[in-house]
């Protein structure tokens, strides 16, 4: 809006100012009306002509410095194929949206114009994209909390490395007790599609598992990933090799933990499908979540297994702020060619974010009171009822009643699989409780009073108050 006429000197009479305001408002209203009419006219024009034969004569892009032409060629390809005005507008719009989501431009403005080329055929259109590239380097820092540990991380990023919307990320994270991570990742969209990316990464990770399993694990690995969005959900296909070291065995570690120390090389392909239809990740009120994971290890290296995992959650609003939530998870690790699975590959169960009423990874196989050995098969399920709290209905705080339970077993390779799985159903550990849930902007906090109802004598129980901090709760 032009404000040149606005009286800048404040001492001029109020009347004059009022008069100005009135005329200005009128002028504004008039202008809006004109815009509206013009927009309707344009809309009608476009609608009337949407099936007329048009074609894109030229595609000009302003404001690019580093971005390669080939990236644009693949993004605008389908717009160049369009032969009616309607489809040209749609395709150009789609292309602009794709470019936007590649996260390399600050803004993208689209202009369509009758071709100015004297040699152009009738119906020729020039498309002009004016863009401004985002800065190349950026740094992100953050903190994470979950599974009884906090960590701080920093990532250094280079955007649009080779001009094809590639990103190069160097990520470091150090945690209070859980881990130290260093990752180097180069990602590239396929054919300029922001929903389909390949990336190659190299990482080093140190996990401190002393608190529940008396060892540290050091991983070095490389992975090639393809992430793509399909109608089913988000897919990730990974081929990776990792060198795992189980080391720093505690002095009083269980014998089996000591014997599992050593080096192993896993080479595997894995597929993950996530379909997340929830309205919120941390404290959803409706929608469902499904995750499927399959992994086959043994291409080279000395680790051979098939691993399957399934996770699901469903949430219903019951009205008046009541929410019902149910979850079911299971996993199966089936080693082959080897007698026993490796501890790095096994499942662990228990904890405020997993099965409440039990300590972190405190369920399942163990030889004596001390160390969790992990299991090859598990089932876990839970139901929660979230209730509104009096006087707090405007805040993201809810009352919480839950019953949850699970079972984790080792598969004895000498037994039939059915026998091992049968044990899983026979010996569930179950707990129930009541508490309060608070969803802050960055994490979910739960305080529950937990009562284990059924347990195995080796389970590590968490009776009474249990605190949960994190993103993912079951």
């Amino acid at each position, binding site marked *: 809006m032009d404000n040149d006429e606005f009286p800048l000197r404040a001492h001029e009479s109020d009347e004059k100012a009022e008069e100005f305001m009135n005329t200005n408002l009128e002028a504004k209203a008039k202008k809006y009306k004109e815009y509206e009419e013009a927009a309707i006219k344009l809309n009608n024009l476009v609608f009337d002509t949407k099936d007329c034969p048009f074609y894109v004569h030229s595609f000009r892009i302003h404001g690019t410095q580093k971005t390669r032409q080939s990236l644009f060629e693949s993004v605008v390809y389908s717009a160049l194929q369009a032969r009616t005005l309607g489809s040209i507008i749609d395709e150009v719009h789609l292309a602009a949206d794709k470019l936007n989501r590649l996260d390399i431009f600050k803004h993208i403005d689209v202009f369509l114009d009758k071709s100015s080329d004297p040699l152009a055929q009738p119906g020729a259109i020039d498309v002009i994209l004016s863009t401004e590239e985002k800065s190349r380097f950026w740094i992100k820092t953050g903190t994470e909390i979950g599974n009884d540990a906090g960590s701080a991380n920093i990532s250094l990023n280079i955007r649009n490395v080779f001009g094809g919307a590639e990103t190069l990320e160097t990520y470091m994270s150090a945690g209070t007790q859980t881990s130290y991570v260093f990752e180097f990742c180069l990602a590239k969209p396929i054919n300029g599609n922001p929903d389909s990316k390949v990336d190659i990464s190299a990482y080093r990770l140190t996990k401190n598992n002393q608190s529940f399993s008396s060892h540290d694990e050091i991983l070095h690995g490389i992975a090639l990933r393809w992430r793509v969005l399909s109608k089913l959900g988000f897919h990730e296909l990974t081929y990776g090799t990792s060198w795992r070291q189980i080391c720093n065995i505690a002095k009083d570690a269980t014998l089996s933990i000591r*014997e599992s120390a*050593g080096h192993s090389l896993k080479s595997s392909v894995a597929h993950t499908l996530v379909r997340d239809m929830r309205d919120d990740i941390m404290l959803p009120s409706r929608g469902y979540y499904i995750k499927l994971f399959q992994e086959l290890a043994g291409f080279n290296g000395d680790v051979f297994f098939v691993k399957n995992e399934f996770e699901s959650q469903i949430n219903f609003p019951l009205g008046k702020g009541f929410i019902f939530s149910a979850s079911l998870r299971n996993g199966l690790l089936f080693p082959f060619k080897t007698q026993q699975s490796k501890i790095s590959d096994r499942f662990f169960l228990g904890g405020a974010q997993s099965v409440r009423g039990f300590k972190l990874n405190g369920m399942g196989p163990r030889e004596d009171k001390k160390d969790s050995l992990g299991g090859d098969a598990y089932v876990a399920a839970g139901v929660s009822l979230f209730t509104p709290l009096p006087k707090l209905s405007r805040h993201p705080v809810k009352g919480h009643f839950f019953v949850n339970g699970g079972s984790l077993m080792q598969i004895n390779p000498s037994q039939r699989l059915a026998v091992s799985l049968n044990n899983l159903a026979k010996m569930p550990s179950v707990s129930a409780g009541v508490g309060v849930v608070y969803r802050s902007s960055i994490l979910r906090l739960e305080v529950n009073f937990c009562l284990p109802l059924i*347990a*195995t004598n*080796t389970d590590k129980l968490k*009776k*009474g108050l249990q605190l949960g901090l994190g993103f993912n709760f079951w």
Partner: protein
Amino acid sequence: MSNQTWRNTINNNPIQQSIRQFLAKFPLKTHRSPYGVRELDDPRLYIWGPGWKSGQETSFDQECVKWQTFLKFSKSDFETKRSNEPLMSPSGKLPFLILTTGDVLVDDSIEKHVTDMYSDNLGRINEQQEADSQSFIALADTKLRNALLYNLWCEPANESITYKKYVGHYAKPLDKLLFQKYKKLAVKELLTRKPVLNKEEIYQEADEALIAISNALGDSKYFFGSSLPTFVDAVVFSYIHVILNIPLNEVQVQSNLIKYSEKIYNEYILSGF
């Protein structure tokens, strides 16, 4: 003190007590875990193995042979397990001994455990002999160890057999990686004692050490004429046994030492397994 009373008041609070009593009733039902407690029947020595020659129960690693032999001397009950994985050990090196109590012992603590519990089966030596014994051990642990480390890790001709024994069981390419790592450690250890690694000099010194040890032993069954073996016998035997069994040996072992090692092998190692 006040802290203590404060805590006591809290803990003895009737509400707290009734909560505790209430919680003690849970869980309402308890399953028995299908996984039994794994306990060792006998102490177990985790070693590198099997030996250089087929059928040998002694380790191919001198440190492992030393402790194996010393435990054999003491006639204590123990079993050996070929783990071939130094990361299992608290010291990062094999061997280590796990007692039935669950305690994990390495190096000197194994010696202490054996001499405390089974000294009756070991020879007794006086203070002077003890001092001499320490000097022979030091001689072996420097001169003979130098030659052994050089032979295993620095002789190109031996690379393939050393590789096979120490890292051959790992998946590729971890084997190469770990081989380089172990080699680096061996060279680093050598360089702490020898500023320059001269092959002839290292073997020459080992030959001289063996002559000195051979002269000290003479024709007696064990060192210092003892009727029962002592720790120095375990050390000397371990070096001679490994040196004699390495496919490409470069040092001269005197005939009395060969006989000595054969006797110990037959009497203690072979009979025991």
